[in-house]
C-alpha cells in the first residue's frame, strides 16, 4: 500500500469525522426517573429520526472543510491537472500546437467501449491546448496545426492570445485519417519564421497514424518535439465499415479491424477486434440482414443480401460497439465500380528481372487502391475512348501527336488525371510530337547532375520522402521553366530542378515526373515514394473525376460548374443536414469532406449523391513511436509548479464563513421555535 493510498484513506476517515461527531453529540436523552414509565409507550420512529443528520447543510459544509483542509495539507502532493510549460531561464517560447483531429481521437480517454458522455481523447487534447494557451505569457508565440489528413494550419504563429482562443474554439473533431508527419513538417515550417530561441512543437495526438513501424517522431529536426500527454496514446480495438456498395442486389461492406497494438519486433501476428461481432444491414432502425465476422479479420469484404422491398436508404453497421462508434456504420451507395486507370507502358523497356507485369501495374494491383488497371498499348487518340478512364499513366512518353494532345487535354479538362513520366524517349520525340498544353515547353533528357531529390521539398510523399535522397539516376528529364509556371512543384531534385510537377487543367490534373518508371534508369520505382505517388495519383483521379466516393479529408471537386452547393446528409436520426462550404482554391472549386457519410451535391441544379468514407489506414490503433526526448520532463508536464494552496485556502475561508452563517441562521430558527413553544 503506497503512501498516497494511506493518505487517501486517512482523508476519507477525516471526512467521516463530522458524522461521528454528530453521533457522539447526539447521545441518548438524559435518563429521568418516572415511576409510571411502564405506562408510557415508546416512540421508536422518533428515536430513529434522532440518529439521522439534523442539519445536512452544516454537515456538508463541515465535511467539505475537512476535505479542503486535507487537500491544503497535501498541497505538495497535489498537482493541478493543468498542462504547463517549463521555460528555459524564463524566456519566451514559440509553440506550434499540433492537435490531432483524426477519427481515432474520437476514442474514449479511458480504455474500453465508447459511449455517449465519455470524454474523448480529442476533447482532452483540445482542453490541454487551451490549458497551454492559458499558461502562456506576453511575448510567447503560438501556432496551431491540425493533424488530420491532410495536415492543415488552423492558426499561423501569433502572439495574439485572443486569436489562439478563437482558433481553438473553432476546432471540431473529424473522421479524417492521421497525417502526423505532414503536421509536424507544417508546424516546424511555421516556427521557422519566429524570432524566438526556444521553439517547440507540442504534439497532442494518439500517435496512431497508420504507420506504427515508421521512424520515431521527433527525430532529425532541430525543433524540439514535446509529446506531453501519454494518456492520449492509442489503445483498444476498433473495427470499421469503410464502405458499403450495392451491386446486383447485394451489399458488399468492407470491414477493416485494427490489429492489436504490440511492441515492434514482437512478431507479425495480429489479433483482430472482430471476434464476436457481426455486420448488420439496417434500414429505418430495423435489421434486414446480418452476418457474423470472422474471429481474426483485418480487412474483409462481407456480402449481405438485400431483401425485396427494402428502402433506398440503407446502412451497414457493426455490433456490438467498440472503441470508436463513429466508424461502425456506413451508408450504402450504389457501386460505381472500381476506378478505371489506364496504363501505357512499354513492356519491353520496363520489364523486371523476376518477370511479370511492369512495376507500375504490379504496384497498382498490390496496393488495393480499388482501382481497375487496364494496360493499353498506346494512348487513345480519341477523347471518347479516354472518357472510360478516370486516370491515365503514360510511362516514358515519346510525345503526343497534335490530335492526341488535343484529345488528352480535353479529357483532362473534364476531370481526367494524367501521370506522365519522362525518360530517354523524350529526347527522341518524332517531329511534331510534343506535350503542350499538358506540359508546356520542351522536355529534354540528359545525364543527371544530382543523385537524389531533396526530401524536405517532397512533403507530397509524406514519410516516404526520406527515400528520395538517393535515387542513383542514370539520367533525368528537364522541363522548360514554362512547365513550372502555374504548377505545383511537389518534389525537386537536390539541385533545385523539378522532380515532380502537378498542373491543374480544367477539372483534371497532370502530374509530370522527370524519371521513367523503370529500374534501368533509376531506383525511383524501388523507393516507397513510388507507391506514395501512385496512392496520391489514384486519390486525385478519384477526386478530380467527380468520384462518387472519396476518403474523408479529401475534397470533392466541381470544376466547370457554375452553381454548386453541397450538404452532408444526416447519418443518424436526430442529426441535421450540414451545409459544406465550397471554396475556390487554385482556380478550382472544391468542398472538403471532413466527416464520413452521404453528401448531397447540386451541380447546376442536378442532384447527385457522393460519399466520404473512413480511410482504411486510420483503422489502426497501434501508436507510432516518438523519441524519448519528446517526453522529457524538463519540457513541461501536468503543472507541477502550479500551487493550488491559495485557491484551497480561499475556498476553506469561504466554507468557514458559510458555516458561521448557517449556525447563526440555525440558532435564530431555534430561538424563534422555542419562543413559539
Amino acid at each position, binding site marked *: 500500500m503506497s503512501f498516497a493510498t494511506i493518505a487517501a484513506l486517512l482523508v476519507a476517515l477525516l471526512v467521516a469525522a463530522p458524522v461521528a461527531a454528530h453521533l457522539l453529540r447526539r447521545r441518548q436523552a*438524559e435518563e*429521568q*426517573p418516572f*415511576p*409510571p414509565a411502564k405506562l408510557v409507550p*415508546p416512540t421508536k420512529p*422518533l428515536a430513529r429520526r434522532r440518529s439521522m443528520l439534523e442539519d445536512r447543510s452544516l454537515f456538508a459544509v463541515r465535511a467539505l472543510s475537512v476535505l479542503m483542509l486535507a487537500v491544503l495539507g497535501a498541497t505538495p502532493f497535489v498537482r493541478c491537472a493543468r498542462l504547463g510549460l517549463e521555460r528555459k531561464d524564463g524566456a519566451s517560447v514559440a509553440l506550434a500546437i499540433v492537435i490531432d483531429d483524426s477519427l481515432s481521437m474520437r476514442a474514449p480517454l479511458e480504455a474500453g467501449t465508447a459511449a455517449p458522455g465519455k470524454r474523448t481523447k480529442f476533447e482532452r487534447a483540445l482542453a490541454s491546448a487551451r490549458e497551454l494557451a492559458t499558461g502562456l505569457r506576453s511575448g510567447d508565440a503560438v501556432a496551431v496545426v491540425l493533424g488530420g489528413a491532410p495536415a492543415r494550419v488552423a492558426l499561423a504563429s501569433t502572439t495574439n492570445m485572443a486569436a489562439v482562443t478563437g482558433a481553438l474554439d473553432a476546432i471540431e473533431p473529424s473522421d479524417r485519417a492521421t497525417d502526423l508527419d505532414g503536421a509536424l513538417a507544417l508546424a516546424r515550417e511555421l516556427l521557422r519564421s519566429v524570432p524566438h530561441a526556444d521553439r517547440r512543437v507540442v504534439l497532442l495526438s494518439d500517435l496512431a497514424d497508420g504507420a506504427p513501424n515508421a521512424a520515431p517522431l521527433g527525430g532529425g529536426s532541430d525543433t524540439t518535439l514535446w509529446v506531453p500527454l501519454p494518456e492520449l496514446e492509442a489503445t483498444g480495438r476498433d473495427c470499421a465499415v469503410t464502405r458499403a456498395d450495392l451491386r446486383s442486389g447485394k451489399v458488399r461492406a468492407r470491414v477493416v479491424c485494427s490489429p492489436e497494438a504490440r511492441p515492434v519486433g514482437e512478431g507479425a501476428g495480429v489479433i483482430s477486434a472482430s471476434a464476436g461481432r457481426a455486420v448488420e444491414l439496417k434500414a429505418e432502425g430495423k435489421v434486414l440482414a446480418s452476418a457474423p465476422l470472422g474471429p481474426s479479420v483485418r480487412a474483409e469484404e462481407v456480402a449481405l443480401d438485400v431483401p425485396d422491398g427494402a428502402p433506398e436508404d440503407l446502412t451497414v453497421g457493426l455490433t456490438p460497439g467498440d472503441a470508436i462508434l463513429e466508424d461502425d456504420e456506413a451508408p450504402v451507395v450504389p457501386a460505381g465500380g472500381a476506378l478505371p486507370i489506364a496504363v501505357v507502358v512499354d513492356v519491353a523497356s520496363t520489364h523486371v528481372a523476376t518477370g511479370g507485369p511492369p512495376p507500375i501495374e504490379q504496384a497498382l494491383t498490390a496496393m488495393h487502391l480499388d482501382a481497375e488497371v487496364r494496360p493499353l498499348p498506346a494512348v487513345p487518340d480519341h477523347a471518347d475512348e479516354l472518357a472510360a478512364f478516370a486516370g491515365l499513366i503514360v510511362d516514358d512518353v515519346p510525345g503526343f501527336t497534335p490530335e492526341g494532345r488535343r484529345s488528352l487535354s480535353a479529357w483532362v479538362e473534364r476531370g481526367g488525371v494524367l501521370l506522365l513520366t519522362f525518360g530517354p524517349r523524350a529526347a527522341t520525340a518524332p517531329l511534331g510530337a510534343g506535350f503542350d498544353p499538358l506540359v508546356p515547353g520542351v522536355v529534354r533528357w540528359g545525364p543527371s547532375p544530382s543523385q537524389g531529390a531533396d526530401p524536405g521539398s517532397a512533403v507530397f510523399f509524406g514519410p516516404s520522402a526520406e527515400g528520395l535522397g538517393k535515387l542513383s539516376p542514370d539520367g533525368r528529364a528537364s522541363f522548360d521553366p514554362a512547365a513550372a509556371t502555374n504548377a505545383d512543384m511537389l518534389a525537386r531534385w537536390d539541385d533545385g530542378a523539378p522532380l515532380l510537377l502537378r498542373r491543374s487543367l480544367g477539372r483534371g490534373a497532370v502530374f509530370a515526373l522527370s524519371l521513367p518508371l523503370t529500374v534501368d534508369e533509376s531506383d525511383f520505382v524501388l523507393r516507397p515514394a513510388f507507391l506514395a505517388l501512385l496512392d496520391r495519383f489514384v486519390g486525385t483521379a478519384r477526386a478530380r473525376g467527380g468520384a462518387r466516393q472519396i476518403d474523408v479529408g479529401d475534397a470533392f471537386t466541381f470544376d466547370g460548374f457554375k452553381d454548386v452547393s453541397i450538404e452532408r446528409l444526416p447519418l443518424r436520426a436526430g442529426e441535421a443536414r450540414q451545409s459544406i462550404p465550397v471554396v475556390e482554391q487554385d482556380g478550382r472549386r472544391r468542398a472538403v469532406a471532413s466527416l464520413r457519410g452521404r453528401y448531397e451535391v447540386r451541380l447546376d441544379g442536378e442532384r447527385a449523391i457522393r460519399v466520404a468514407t473512413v480511410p482504411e489506414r486510420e483503422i489502426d490503433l497501434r501508436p507510432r513511436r516518438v523519441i524519448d526526448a519528446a517526453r522529457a520532463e524538463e519540457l513541461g508536464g501536468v503543472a507541477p509548479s502550479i500551487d493550488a494552496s491559495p485557491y484551497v485556502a480561499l475556498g476553506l475561508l469561504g466554507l468557514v464563513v458559510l458555516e458561521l452563517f448557517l449556525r447563526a441562521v440555525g440558532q435564530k430558527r431555534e430561538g424563534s421555535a422555542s419562543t413559539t413553544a
Partner: protein
Amino acid sequence: MAELRPSSRSGKDGIPIDWGSLAPLRLRARTLAEGVYAGGHRSVRKGPGVEFGGHRPYVPGDDLRFFDRRALLRHDRMMVREFETETDRALWLCVDATASMAYRSSRAPGAKLAYGALVAAALARVALSTGDPVGLAWLGGRGTLPLPASSGREAFDRVAGALEGAAAAGDASTDEAAMERALAPVARRARRGAVIVLVSDFVDLPERALSAFSALAAGGRSLVALRVLDPNEADLGFSGHVRLRASEGDVVVETDAEEVRAIYRERLAGIAERWSTELSGRGGRWVESVTDQPPADVVRAVVRAVAEARA
C-alpha cells in the same frame, strides 16, 4: 411482614421520605384534622345491641327474646324489637411505601409518600378524635412499623411516629403476593365495620393487588383506595424527547412526551376505572389526589368516601 424485592434504585436502606414543605407531619396533620369533622358514624347494621333500633315484622325463626308483646297487644301485629349492633369502627391505614412512592418532581411540595403519610396521619387524627381506633399496615418500605388498631391519647403519636420513620423501598411490581402479605394482618384483625384505607400510587402494584384488596370487603369492612400521584405523573409533565426509568422494575422508555401524552393519560385513567369499578361493586370508594392539591381537600374527600362506604 416479608420484605419485597429491593428496588434497583432504592438501595439497601430505602429512600428517606422527601417531606418538602409537608413537614412537620404531626403539626400539619393536627391542623388538617381540626378542619375536618367526621361526625358520628353510627352503624346502620341492626342486630344484638344495647340501643333500640326500631321494630320490624316477626318472621319465624326470630329470637323470641326480642318479640314485642306490647306491640302485639296494642296493634295486634307480631313485631320484633331491634337493637343497633355493636360494630368495629377501627380505621386501618395501609400505606404503600414501595420505591415509587419516593418520587417527587419539581412541581410537587413533597414526595408522594410524604403526602400520603400526611393524609394518613390526618385521617388517623380524625378517627382518633371520634374515638375510633387506628391501625397501620405497610406495603413495602424500609424501617416501617406496623401498628395494631389502638385508640387513646398516645395512638396518634404512635401512628405519626411510624409514618415519620418509614423509608421508601421495595419493588412490588413483580411480586404478585406482595399485597396479600401486606393486607394479611389487616384481614386478620379488622372486624366487621372496620374501614380500610389503602394509600398508594397504584402505578406498579401487581395484577392481584386489586383482588386481594377488594376481598377485604367480604367481612363487612369498608374499603377506600386513595391514589396519590405526583403532578408530573398526572399529566406526564415532560416535553420533547425523554428517556424515562421506572422506580420499580427495569423498565426504561425512550419516547416523545407530546406524542404519547394522550395515550399515557388514557392508561392512567384505565387503572383508576378498573379499581373504581371493582371497589364500587363492593361498596368501596376510589379517591384520587395529586400532591400539589391542598391536603385538606383530600382528607375531606377520604372522610366523605369513608362515610359513603359505611352508609
